[in-house]
């Protein structure tokens, strides 16, 4: 590889034309006019420099980001209000598989009367033949959700309690 040190030396001996004194004056004017006294002292407090070269870091308030942020927050609040104020959808009526039970619950006062019991079996599993008491029995495990409902005929208010349940039943195996 050829050596370029000689041409580099020759280039470095070339001195760029000095800028006009007017440019320096313009820069000085810009620096002095560009800041109010308050801003100047504020900047001086937060500005650091390593030696000759000043190193400045200042927080810049970004109005565009603030505006976008506020708009997004307002939209979120508006959306949440709409969600809260939307009328509750009526659930499709479930088929009562049993007649309304006459429960003597503490809730079932004179004002609230039992309105129905719903039982939905959503999973059944045959766990095979077992021999409790030396008799062949098929064990069936089922999972269901039961819902009890009360209504107040005067006000139309209703109360509903729903809970999951698990039932294990033993079905006798009969040989035919």
């Amino acid at each position, binding site marked *: 590889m050829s050596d370029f040190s000689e041409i580099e030396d020759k280039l470095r001996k070339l*001195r760029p034309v000095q800028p*006009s004194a007017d440019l320096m004056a313009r820069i000085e004017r810009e620096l002095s006019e560009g800041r109010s006294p308050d801003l100047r002292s504020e900047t001086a407090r937060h500005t650091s420099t390593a030696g000759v070269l000043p190193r400045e870091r200042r927080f810049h308030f970004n109005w565009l980001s603030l505006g976008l942020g506020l708009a997004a927050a307002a939209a979120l609040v508006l959306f949440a209000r709409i969600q809260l104020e939307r009328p509750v959808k009526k659930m499709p009526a479930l088929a009562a598989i049993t007649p309304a039970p006459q429960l003597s619950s503490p809730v079932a006062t004179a004002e609230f009367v039992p309105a129905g019991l719903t039982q939905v079996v959503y999973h059944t599993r045959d766990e095979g033949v077992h021999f409790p008491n030396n008799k062949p029995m098929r064990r069936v495990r089922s999972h269901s959700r039961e819902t009890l409902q009360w209504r107040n005929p005067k006000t139309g208010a209703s109360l509903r309690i729903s809970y999951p349940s698990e039932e294990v039943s033993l079905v006798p195996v009969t040989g035919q």
Partner: protein
Amino acid sequence: MENVATDGNWKNCFSQLAPGLVLFARQWSRSAADAEDIVQEAFVRFWRKQHDIANRGLLYATVRSIALDFLRRDSRRARREATAVSEMDQTVQPMFEIEDESQRAVVAALDLLPGEQREVLVMKIWNDLTFAEIASALEISQNTAASRYRYALAALKKNLPSV
């Protein structure tokens, strides 16, 4: 220990960088006055945005960006005005303080370099930027910056047999 930067620090900084910055801006402007306008606008913009002055790549990128904008505006203006004076008749203002004929030959050889090589050379030789800073300012890789520098030196060496 950190010092507090004052307007005096900025002025001192500018006085150190100004010759190199103006030379850099001359790559895109026909006159020294235009180059000084470019440098003024770039430096003031850089200062107002409170950039870290140690980030010289960004400062030179700002000068370059404003110079290119200036060049586009200047070209449009020149077309609009359609003056009778051709560009060849305009006085070419020197970029360097030439002391002898050998330096004149070097400057003439510099003028023959492709723009992308010359700007790297100007940043490296007369502004003391590192290849990393040059790469940052020109948005190229360091290898590309180093290659352009070597190509420029090789071309100068070829065009200046006495060197």
